[in-house]
Structures are given as structure tokens and as C-alpha cells.
């Protein structure tokens, strides 16, 4: 049975990609078959943390939305479509309604209410789905949402669906920051969710919000305290105040950034460093006790 692990955080920049890339590397190194999913479709960079792209295996367009097309010859300018649209995505124009693409959700209410059937819907491309083999020989399923795009949750859902067809032991999901649509799509139904927290009030606040979402989705959740030494007293406070098992504490060190710059996972870049030991300890617990 394939197991799914998601790495998420309420705040950005806490170390999701750091944990996700090293976890993938660790499991791969242990002889497991791992597929990594980069679910941060607005800033996809998990593959960079796994050495960059060695080979693109598959690339396809993702049609995640629809846009209304107005037949202005048929339109009788009754404006029922404008009244019905809950997203204020239609404006009165000279010949009929004008569609504001950035506000349209593509759900089709305008077409249904149009008495003369002057509105039809066509599929639009909202992103790309790419499967690449990283230089660390780990396949990465990644999405790239069109710039300024929406419906990132649907693309994330497609990425996970595609990863599940790839016959593997583990699917490692690097989530987007936050608690909204793409994050919910990243964590719903996973076997384990790991929240990465840094010792700042901003990160803790995000973690509490994310925990609440995870609870409502009934997802088994753990946490990792990252960069704990930038504020050790606050890190201790977090440990006391948060109602979730903390799998480990990782210190902050220049080698984390150096590893990124060299595009090599830290576990390979500095395998004997203190951080590497701590990471392996945490990942062993995940592998042997949690999953």
C-alpha cells in the first residue's frame, strides 16, 4: 500500500521544501520507491532541492477551468447573467456582457440563467502537469499554475491522482504555504501530515490555524520544530502550548543554505552534520513507528 505524507506550514519560509526534499532523499536512500509531489503550484521548487531536472518524463496541459463565451448576436441584453453571477465577473458592455477573466470561477451560472442561450462554456488551460526525474533519481510530479491563476486546489488534486498511478511505497507532498484551497487539497486524506514550525509568533499562529484545518479533515498530524535555536525560549513555549507530537528539533545552520546553493539535499551534502543526524532520527521515527 502506498503511503502519503504531506509537509505543510501555515506560514511561508519555515522549511517545508527543506524537510520534504530530505525526507524523499532519505526514503529513496533506504531503498524505498518514492514519488515526490510539489503541490506549491505558485512557487514550485522542490525539484531544485533534489538536484534539478535530469529528464522530463511527461508534460501535459491542465484544463482546470472553463470560461464563458458570449454570442453577441443572440444576446438580448436582459442582464440576467450579471444578476446571477456571484463573483461579479460580468460587466455591462455595449453588445452584451463582458467577462472579467480574473474574477470568473467558470462554474456556469450565467449560461444556465441566459434565456436565449447566448452563453456557452469552453475549457481553458490553467496550468501544466510535469513529471520529471530529479538528479537524485527521485521522480517529482509538479504543477505549474498559469501566472495570476486560480483553482490551484484542482491542479494539486490532479498531481496527487497522477502520483498514485505511479506504483510506489511513498508519496511525499510538499504543500503550498497557508491554509486555503491548495493546502486543503494537499493534506486531505494523507496518512500523515507534518507541520513545520519555526520559533516565531507568526509561524506558531499559522501552525494553530493549520492544525484546526487538519483536525476538521481528520488527518493524523505531527510537527517538526525547525531553526529552533533562533529563539530557544520561544521554541520551548511552543512545545508547551501546542497540542501535537513534536518529532524533533532542527537547528539553524549555514549548511542548509549552502546545500540549496549546491542543489544537493543536506543529507547528502553534509551527511555527518548535526542537522543531518537529527533529520535521520526524525525520518526513522516516521518510517518505523508512524507509518
Amino acid at each position, binding site marked *: 500500500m502506498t503511503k502519503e505524507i504531506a509537509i505543510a506550514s*501555515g*506560514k*511561508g*519560509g*519555515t522549511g517545508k*521544501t527543506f524537510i520534504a526534499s530530505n525526507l524523499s532523499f532519505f526514503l529513496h536512500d533506504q531503498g524505498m520507491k518514492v514519488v515526490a509531489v510539489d503541490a*506549491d503550484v*505558485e*512557487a514550485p*521548487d522542490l525539484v*531544485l*532541492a533534489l538536484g534539478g531536472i535530469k529528464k522530463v518524463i511527461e508534460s501535459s496541459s491542465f484544463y482546470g477551468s472553463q470560461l464563458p463565451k458570449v454570442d453577441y448576436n443572440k444576446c438580448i441584453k436582459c442582464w440576467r447573467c450579471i444578476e*446571477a453571477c*456571484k*463573483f461579479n465577473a460580468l460587466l455591462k458592455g455595449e453588445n452584451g456582457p463582458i467577462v472579467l477573466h*480574473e*474574477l470568473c*470561477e467558470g*462554474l*456556469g*451560472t450565467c449560461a*444556465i*440563467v441566459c434565456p436565449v442561450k447566448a452563453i456557452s462554456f469552453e475549457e481553458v488551460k490553467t496550468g501544466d502537469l510535469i513529471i520529471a526525474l530529479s538528479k537524485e533519481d527521485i521522480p517529482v510530479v509538479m504543477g505549474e*499554475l498559469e*501566472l*495570476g*491563476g*486560480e483553482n*490551484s*486546489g484542482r491542479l494539486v488534486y490532479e498531481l496527487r491522482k497522477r502520483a498514485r498511478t505511479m506504483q510506489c511505497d511513498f508519496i511525499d507532498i510538499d504543500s*503550498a*504555504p*497557508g*491554509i*486555503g*484551497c491548495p*493546502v*486543503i487539497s494537499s493534506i486531505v486524506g494523507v496518512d500523515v501530515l507534518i507541520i513545520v514550525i519555526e*520559533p*516565531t*509568533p*507568526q509561524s506558531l*499562529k*499559522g501552525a494553530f*490555524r493549520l492544525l*484546526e*484545518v487538519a483536525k*476538521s479533515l481528520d488527518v493524523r498530524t505531527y510537527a517538526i520544530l525547525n531553526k529552533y535555536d*533562533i*529563539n530557544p525560549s*520561544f521554541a520551548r513555549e511552543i512545545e508547551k502550548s501546542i497540542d501535537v507530537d513534536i518529532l524533533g528539533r532542527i537547528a539553524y545552520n*549555514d*549548511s*542548509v*543554505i*549552502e*546545500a*540549496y*546553493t549546491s*542543489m544537493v539535499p543536506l543529507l547528502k551534502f553534509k551527511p555527518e552534520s548535526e542537522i543531518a543526524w537529527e533529520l535521520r532520527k526524525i525520518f526513522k521515527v516516521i518510517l518505523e513507528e508512524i507509518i
Partner: protein
Amino acid sequence: MKIISVTGGKGGTGKTLVATNLAWLLSRKKKTMLVDIDVDNPCTYTFFNVHLTKTRSIVRFKPIIDKEKCTLCGKCTATCPTHALILIPKKNDILYIPSLCEGCALCYYVCPEQAILEGKDEIGYIYEGRKDNIYLIVGELKVGQRASIKVMLETLSHSMERAKEYQYEYVVIDTPPGTSSGIYRALSLSNKIILVTEPTTLGIHDLKRMLRLLKDLKDKEIIMVVNKYGIRGGAYEELSSFIKGCKLDNIVYIPYDAEIPKHYAKGKIIVKKYGDKLTKAFNEILRFAHDC
């Protein structure tokens, strides 16, 4: 009125650091509004000892089914584009799953019996508060809801109305990470854009995506702020070749100092304490914000 957005692509590069400190500096002389559209996890207010008041709930349509009128014809369940309504024939019931609903109201319009009534579902809130010369507007997504972008858009239009009403001279908008349509809206409203990045491979990579988003926007003044400059092990070669190629000539460097994140983590306005070390960088950012 000048509108300045602070953005950058990657999370944790220092957007909120720049936005809060810039707003504080501007507010010493000018009426300044600070708008937080990082609705998933808004944090700007934690840097000001400010009392926020919930001034608005952001709502969207939700169906309320009148079971007496409903004939279980199945039209609503067949048309719902997100499968939030499910017909359960055995139980003679229609099940509504709020987490799948997008609030499009299609069901309301297709029901031949008018058995669906218009209900409202709260998806977020707008908070407001004043601290000295800063007026703070914060958008927040209700936990468990998915419609971040709608909350961002509502917060932006509410802020623009307020800013005009009270004649704010400066509006600073703090954006979330990413390149979503909500961020695009903030950037298109702005006169000036501050791109905050860090000298790391991922920071530069995500900024490149942001620059592609900016291509569609005309007549914007842009400044790039490289935060944590000098951090050991950083991707400096990559950064300098990126800078050469990106055609941005207005670049400010905020020097890395391990003390800054510690102080910042306590929720402090850092220019108050580290004024000397940061004067040069923040003076340049301030000059950019002031210039016409």
C-alpha cells in the same frame, strides 16, 4: 494617494518585515494605511500594539433546501459543478457538503420548484484598527474555508474605498507568497511594487516567476530588495547573473544579521532598534516610496 505593494514569490523572504517597517517609517510624516492580504495567515498586526475591530464578515451564497417544496427531482445535484449536492434516493434526501461548495448559486437557478433558498456562509473577515498614524486593515480567511482569493479581493476593494474616504497618502499592501490572481489584483492597483527576495536558489527561482507575472503590468515602478544579504552559503553567483539579466536597476540590500530575526521574532519593528545598521537600506526603500 500612492499605493505600494510588497511581494516576491517565495515565503519567508521578508515581505512582512519590509511592509511593516516601511509603513511605520512613512507614518511618521504621512497618513499611512497598511493592508494585509496574506489572508491565510495575516501577521502584520502582531508588529503593532494595536486593537483590531472586526468590521465586516465576508460571505458567499449557500443553498438552503426547503424540504417541503423539494420533489427530489435531482436537477440541482446533476448540475452542481463541484458535486456539493448529492441525491440520496433511499433516504429521500439531498445531502449538502459545504466544503465542496463554491457558492455559485447554480442550484438556486435550476430548481424548478424554487425549493432552494439563498443562505449565507461566512468565509472570512475584515479587521481594522489604528495605531498612531497607521491605519491597519487585515483580511482573514475563516479556518477551514478555501476561498482565500475571494477574501483577498474583498479586502482590497474595502481598503481602496476606505483609503479614498479618509484620504490616505500612502497605502502599503503586504501580500502572501505565490503568484495568484489575488496578488495580481493588488499589483495592478499599485503605483509601486517592492519585490523582496533572498540570496538563495529558491528565492531567486520564485522571483523569476513573479517577474513574468509583472510583464503584463504597465507603468509600474519596481524596486527589488535583497534581504538577508551576506548570509553564508548563499547563491551569490546566481544572484548577480540574475540581476544582470533582469533589467531591474533599482536594487536595495538589507544586510544579514543573526540578531535581526531574533528581534523580529519577538514582534518588534526592527528599524526602531536596528536603525543604524538598516538606515541605508530603509532610507533607499523610503526614497523609492516617496518619489513620484
